[in-house]
């Protein structure tokens, strides 16, 4: 992605469009930031928005490994659950009856660190596997950790779960998560412009090639995997507080992974804005399906997944890209989507399109 000096012909034409995206994103951010200050925003609305931000955050983290390095993680929700559980355990610590739990902030931070630490350990083993083997190994990690949490009752409360003291300040959680998501978006955008980001894409495109060119692929991919685990753990920790209750079946749900995968696919795998747009869109679609279809919402989601994979493999961002707009030039989407054409999703058939 070359950033030529403004004023040179073709590039000058693209700048206003790129700037428009930046301004648009800023406007959305400001609207989201002022929303709670306006009267009439109920706690329920705030919770809905916070959960949407959670969903977006997890999708961004999933995209770091799934989209950028091409390691498709089918058990990403495990870090969410571990973050939630670690926090819940620290808070509900008891010694002979009275609660001697930790205060919220350190509990949340340590919860996230535990998730990141475990991600570093498990990632070292599972990231040696490639393609579908990695995916299934992570699915296995997810199922196995859930069972361990269920069995380890002295620490985790077993199948009964743990109850947290209510600490309900919806607006506070909303702002914290809004800030986190903003940091993640800016962070991924910035990451793409660093050598580190380029190295991650190189791993996706040709891991052996990257290695022969002196990139320490094992270290880099484990690093990004651990960071994604830590970050998703942080969202899990925050979620545990807001939910005030964790048990194995609500802290570790497959749907959270499915949402991250689907949201990212819908938006555009390996793009900066993809997971944000996709996860947000998916969240509202699901809310609609939930209210109108009840039981059938999962069915609709399965159909949607198949349709996206078969017919819109490059996602929403790819749709815009194909129309020849350079709307997303500023965020480096041209480069991303070009990579994606040879990437894991589009596979062979997209070469004909290019």
């Amino acid at each position, binding site marked *: 992605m070359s950033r030529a000096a403004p004023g040179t012909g073709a590039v000058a034409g693209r700048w206003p469009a790129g700037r428009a995206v930046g301004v648009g994103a800023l406007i959305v951010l400001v609207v989201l930031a002022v929303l709670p200050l306006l009267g009439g925003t109920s706690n329920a609305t705030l919770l809905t928005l916070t959960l949407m931000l959670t969903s977006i955050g997890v999708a961004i983290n999933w995209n770091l490994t799934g989209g950028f390095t091409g390691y498709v993680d089918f058990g990403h929700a495990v870090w969410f659950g571990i973050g939630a559980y670690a926090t819940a355990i620290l808070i509900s610590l008891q010694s002979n009856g009275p609660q001697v739990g930790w205060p919220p902030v350190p509990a949340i931070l340590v919860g996230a660190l535990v998730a990141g630490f475990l991600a570093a350990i498990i990632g070292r083993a599972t990231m040696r596997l490639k393609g579908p083997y990695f995916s299934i190994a992570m699915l*296995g990690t997810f*199922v196995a950790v859930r069972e361990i949490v269920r069995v380890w009752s002295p620490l985790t409360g077993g199948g009964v779960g743990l109850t947290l003291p209510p600490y309900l300040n919806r607006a506070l959680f909303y702002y914290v998560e809004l800030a986190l998501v903003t940091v993640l978006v800016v962070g991924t955008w910035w990451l793409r412009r660093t050598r580190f980001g380029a190295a991650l894409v190189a791993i996706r495109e040709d891991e052996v090639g990257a290695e022969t060119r002196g990139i320490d692929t094992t270290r880099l991919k484990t690093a990004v995997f651990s960071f994604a685990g830590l970050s998703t753990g942080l969202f899990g920790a925050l979620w545990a507080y807001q939910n005030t209750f964790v048990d194995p079946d609500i802290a570790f749900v497959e749907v959270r992974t499915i949402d991250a995968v689907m949201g990212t696919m819908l938006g555009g795998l390996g793009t900066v804005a993809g997971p944000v747009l996709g996860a947000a869109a998916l969240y509202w679609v699901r809310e609609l399906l939930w209210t109108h279809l009840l039981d059938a919402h999962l069915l609709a989601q*399965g159909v949607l997944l198949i349709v996206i994979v078969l017919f819109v493999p490059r996602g929403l961002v790819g749709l815009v890209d194909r129309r020849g707009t350079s709307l997303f030039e500023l965020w480096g989407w041209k480069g991303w989507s070009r990579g994606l054409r040879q990437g894991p*999703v589009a596979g062979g058939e997209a070469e004909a399109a290019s």
Partner: protein
Amino acid sequence: MSYFAQALVNGIALGGMYTILVLGFSIIWGVMGVINLAHGEFVMVGAYLAWMASDFWDVDPFISAPVVFVVMLLFGYLVQRVLVNRIIDRSSLVSLLVMFGVSIILQSVMKIAFSADFRLANTDLDGAWRLSDQLTIPVTRFWILVVAVGVTAGLGLFLGHSRLGKSIRAAAQNREAARIVGVDVKKVYAVTFALCIGLTGVAGALISPLLAVQPFQGPPLTLKAFAITAMAGLGSVRGALGGAMVLGMVEAMLALYVDRIGTNLAVVASFVLLVAALVLRPQGIFKGLRHVDATST
């Protein structure tokens, strides 16, 4: 000692169950290169069919199994024509995600149709044979083992000696070469997929008296099938038997030696086996239909 003998018997019985559960998954992967993430859901559909036969018409799952086979064969053929044909040439991520979508759809449909209640089919072949005070043989599992061994032998003969079986192996080893020597690869894939889904449905029917039939029983079964296949070599019939016995034995021993929680750790065990097998011996322990290398460097 006698507890150990009992665990040994349980392990072999469990291994028989896993053998029949894993064969369809293993062969689809080995021949077509498609990882059928909806495998557990096809088992679940087969189990529901057998439960319906048992509950509505009082037909024993061991008797309804052939009917379930035919129904699932047709269902598998339909899925192959509508979906699998489209994804077979594409990257493994596409087939993983599409089959994942299929699994969500099947779970959801079954939940809408039958609710999430746990069901069990009735069979006359239940109970246990007492050999001594501390050694019993579970009857249902014994007969499943018999069927599993029979099916394994039959499949081995079919793949090894029949013309169609040879075409299937040829298509698995080298698709282009098979096409050149006149194998209709599309037809081979359609037959393979339909046959394997039929077999998977039979597995579901046979375990319906043992394992609670419910819409969400699939994912752990898929995981176990994956673990066994990865251990055993893709599409290897003998390997499936061997890998299934290993997993069954590990689970039975866990249940014996780890007090109370051992049975819950079964799925953890299959995961540990899976990762260990993949990392240590990525090409599989037995020689499969397709060469595989799971590690990246």
